[in-house]
């Protein structure tokens, strides 16, 4: 157990009387490509919000890199190495693309060692994402795919150990999906642990080494992509009985 990067123990999250997550366990190994799937409303984004600290879970414990992070605020979790992208892009609209990346670089990755190196580092990340030509563009001038890429780039700029990609590919074309997949695979090869939440099965099945399926706030299956595809419970969750 100790080599796990992220351990989620029995996390429950309620909204009033509605239980969005019920005693869910997740264990993500270091350097793993991990998929989290489930029908709409199954609690995937709630799970991510609990891990990243945007929501506080009602029960259970979240351990990251051997440290209990259940009670610490979101910004400190980012500094420890948990970064996420948002399903609906949330760019800093008054800034250029480069400046968007400088925020996590300055606040999470380096914590106030400012200067020109920041811009250099931000450029490197943009080049990795093949967005270098957009560095000085304001985010209002970006297309949907560029906004998705910016979400990933900005999360990368926090220099995380764990990247949580929340539906980075929804609504993108096949070629665009391949672009983003390629980037995530490359980042993973460089040592990053990735949790991918996705509805596009082609992407999540080819990317993930291990998949957990949520349905109505509960974990109904866990296994390799092949096991998941042949799992009767999963089929029922998606297609009905």
């Amino acid at each position: 157990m100790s080599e796990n990067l992220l351990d989620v123990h029995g996390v429950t999250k309620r909204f009033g009387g509605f239980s969005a997550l019920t005693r869910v366990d997740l264990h993500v190994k270091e350097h793993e490509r991990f998929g989290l799937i489930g029908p709409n409303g199954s609690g995937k984004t709630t799970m991510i919000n609990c891990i990243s600290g945007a929501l506080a879970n009602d029960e259970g414990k979240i351990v990251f890199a051997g440290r209990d992070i259940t009670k610490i605020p979101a910004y400190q979790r980012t500094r420890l190495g948990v970064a996420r992208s948002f399903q609906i892009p949330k760019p800093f609209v008054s800034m250029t693309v480069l400046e968007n990346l400088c925020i996590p670089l300055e606040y999470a990755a380096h914590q106030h060692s400012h200067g020109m190196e920041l811009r250099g580092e931000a450029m490197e990340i943009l080049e990795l994402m093949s967005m270098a030509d957009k560095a000085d563009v304001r985010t209002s001038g970006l297309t949907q795919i560029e906004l998705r890429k910016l979400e990933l780039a900005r999360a990368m700029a926090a220099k995380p150990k764990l990247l949580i990609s929340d539906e980075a590919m929804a609504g993108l074309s096949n070629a665009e999906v391949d672009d983003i997949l390629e980037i995530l695979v490359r980042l993973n090869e460089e040592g990053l642990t990735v949790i991918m939440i996705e509805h596009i099965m082609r992407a999540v099945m080819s990317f993930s080494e291990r998949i957990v399926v949520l349905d109505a706030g509960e974990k109904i299956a866990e296994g390799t992509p092949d096991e998941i595809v042949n799992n009767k419970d999963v089929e029922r969750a998606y297609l009905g009985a």
Partner: protein
Amino acid sequence: MNKERKIFLIVAAVLIVGSFLITTHMENRFYYKAAYVVLQYVVLATAWNILGGYTGYVNFGTAAFFAMGAYTAVALIKTWKPPLYVLLVTGGLVSGLLGLGIGYLTLRLRGVFFSIATLALAVVLQMIVSNWDYVGGGAGTAVLKPRSVPMFSNYDEFLFFVMAALAVVSVAIAWLIEKSWIGRGMAAIRDNEEAAECMGVPILKLKLFATTVSGALMGIAGAPFSYFVVYIEPTSAFHLDYAVNSLAMPMIGGTTTWLGPLVGAVLVGTAQQIATVTLSSEMNLLIVGSLLVGFVVFAPDGLVGLFGKVRARFAGKEA
């Protein structure tokens, strides 16, 4: 960066010395009174902008922080009449603490709900002060200003100089914040609070910093107020004009930079002073109102934004 800082410091010093030199040459007291009001709005608009423009939290309670500074000073004057700098410091401290406390209580509220809470704060504080007899209660109280002050021929000139220095200092503080990591974090909060927190920005700390600094500057601006008006009563100290003007001036000048509130306060403040003399004292709010509507519709980024756009267009034509 360092060169920029040097130029800024030199300009600030020149402005302070310049305003002192003016007092040795100009006689007409009306101009000092008028200039004091305009400079006071430079401080208020700049202070408002640190929270409203940089961090994105619209404060309708400027009058509360301003009057807190003013009444703290009145209470001190009634007890032991300390020198003006003590009034400034305590006024700033009290209003800064008020900002910190209000920030802690209300920053969970976003958007318009935060604004309503700040407006309520002004109403509540006005009720309390109106019932506090020691500082004059609802009827108000007369405050005797010191008869003389060294180096200045009268106290109005001295107050003008003090407010000029305060204006320079508060603009400098806004400039420093804007150019630092704090200002960049504030901009991230303004743009998207949730994303900012997930990118490692300690949003609660930065927001509390903003409410504290903004409140303190407003309190400092209010501290000399009773000496300036000579007779202070709650209706004038808590007047809605302060809230409306200190919000409208940055909006008209432009909210994302230190320059915006400065330009807005000088232009609108001066226009109001001229209107008060030439037209009527009630006309000035009409002017602010129409300007605000015009700018929100036609130039949402204010004069500074408008200027930037025009310059970009001309640069585009040349290329």
